[in-house]
């Protein structure tokens, strides 16, 4: 459509840009405030607004790394960072593997109860995790699994499975039928068909799922809070951060640095792999 530059059209274009830029600022400024404050000395953070640094943004003497040193080595964020990694990696690999196997069977094998099981998976997508905490926590306490990494790995696996199965099944089911039929004629087992055909052809879907599950676990607070609570040797960043909020309340130089430490990994993943992340969201809009 050719655009005519009448005064009315110019005004409406200008207001369009104005609204969009304004909204983008509303989304950016809160995060920017956090980032800037995390590099300012304690006195500066409590004495003046973070936006005042922009009067002399290139005066680097007003920035410091002290807050990060403080949260990482005095407040245990370094340990919590390691814990988050130790929790998130197995809690991503395990459910994706288990889900891929099940999703392949749902898509390409025939067995009794298949439809019913699939409907149960779809139903479970929206079950609130809250309804599972008490029984599992009790069992965990009896078994000594509360406050352990393994307890969290398996809990995240169980919780992540319905979405993972749902997403991968939809993807597997869309692969061409001939492919598997000719493989079976050539004597391939379902395992070969899964491992040599379905998986390699589904890298984009698997990538989306891996990113999604990883970020989900990395950002989780509630599940970790329930099953490991304050156990410092196991608690991930999110739990540590919420503890610091409780103990530091208004000491923003510490809290902003601590919050940013929790975000470094998700932000890197986001900027590097945004495409896959968005694809995962689009594929599974019903995740509960």
């Amino acid at each position, binding site marked *: 459509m050719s655009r005519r530059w009448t005064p009315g059209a110019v005004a409406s274009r200008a207001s369009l*840009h104005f*609204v*969009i830029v304004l*909204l*983008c600022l509303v*989304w*950016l400024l*809160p995060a920017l405030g956090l980032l800037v*404050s995390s590099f300012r000395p304690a006195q500066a953070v*409590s004495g*003046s*607004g973070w936006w005042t640094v922009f009067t002399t943004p290139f005066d680097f003497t007003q920035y410091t790394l002290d807050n990060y040193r403080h949260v990482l080595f005095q407040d245990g964020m370094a340990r919590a960072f390691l814990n988050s990694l130790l929790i998130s990696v197995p809690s991503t690999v395990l459910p994706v593997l*288990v889900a891929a196997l*099940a999703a392949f*069977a*749902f898509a390409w*094998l*025939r*067995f009794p109860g*298949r439809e019913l099981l699939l409907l149960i*998976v*779809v139903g*479970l997508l*929206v*079950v*609130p995790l*809250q*309804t*599972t905490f*008490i*029984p599992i926590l009790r069992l965990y306490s009896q078994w000594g699994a509360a406050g352990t990494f393994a307890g969290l790995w398996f*809990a995240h*696996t*169980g*919780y992540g*499975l*319905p979405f993972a199965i749902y997403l991968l099944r939809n993807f597997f089911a869309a692969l061409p039928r001939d492919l598997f039929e000719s493989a079976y004629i050539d004597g391939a*087992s*379902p395992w070969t068909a899964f491992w040599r055909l379905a998986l390699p052809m589904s890298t984009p879907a698997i990538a989306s799922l891996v990113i999604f599950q990883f970020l989900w676990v990395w*950002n989780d*607070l*509630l599940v970790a*809070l329930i099953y490991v609570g304050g156990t410092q040797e196991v608690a991930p960043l*999110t739990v540590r*951060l*919420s503890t610091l*909020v409780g103990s530091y309340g208004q000491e*923003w130089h510490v*809290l902003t640095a601590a*919050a*940013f430490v*929790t*975000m470094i990994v*998700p932000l890197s993943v*986001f900027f590097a792999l945004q495409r896959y*992340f968005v694809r995962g*969201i*689009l594929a599974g809009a*019903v995740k*509960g």
Partner: protein
Amino acid sequence: MRGEKAWSALFVGPAVLLVSFYLVLPTLYTVYLSFFDRNSQSFVGLDNFRYLFTNAAVQAAFRNNLLWLVVFTAGTVLLGLLLAVLLDRVRYEAVAKSIIFLPMAISFAGAGVIWRFMYAYRPEGAEQIGLLNQIVVWLGGTPRAWLIEQPWVNNLALIAAGVWIWTGFCLVIISAAYKGIPKDMMEAARVDGANELQVFRHISLPSLYPTLAVITTTMIINVMKIFDIVYVMTNGQFGTEVLANRMYKEMFQFRHFGRASAVAVVLLAVAAVVMVINIRRFREEEGR
């Protein structure tokens, strides 16, 4: 195929075991526990539910959840819709989308710290360090304690943080659907003299209804489970408690597992409605 059932059992078995153990059985057991006393020793009938529906503090949590339900759902879906339509008209769409979507990548605990800082309050006359109060002061107003003034200001302040996080999710999904609407339909309407508002009202909007329905149910499911934001920002103080936080409190502070289970059952009941809708939709899609 020979041995298809055995292969299926191998493929689906691990997933069935994990999902049963972590989701299905605990959920059923929680429903059972909701009819028992604090230690799950003696049957108390509907006492726990009677408590939920008569206790003033729990009533407040219900009321807050309802406020969240209305404002958060409307806010995220409408802002997502607005942005999807507006961003489609500018060249920097991809950048703007990334900005709005960014909060989805970070933890809600981290986002909670970001917004606690945004809302930071100093008495009138003192140097403001929270951006929101500074803006209020610049505009000639008096600073407010956003997270303390109950019941409206602080609850809406928390909900605003929730909207900041989730709007990007709605935007990405609505935008994908919006781009799927055939452009010649809109062009034809424009040629016939329809203005942009009419095109939106009579062509774009009806085509988006199914997507908006999915998004809205997803947001309703999310809002019922909202926990992290409230936990980190106010910990449910000053009349900001919501159901998920109430359950956590019943569990770990009051150690009343009957009541905690009953709260979970209420969350489950809301989810069950969406569950039925999802299963029905899934069957329709599969039955093509």
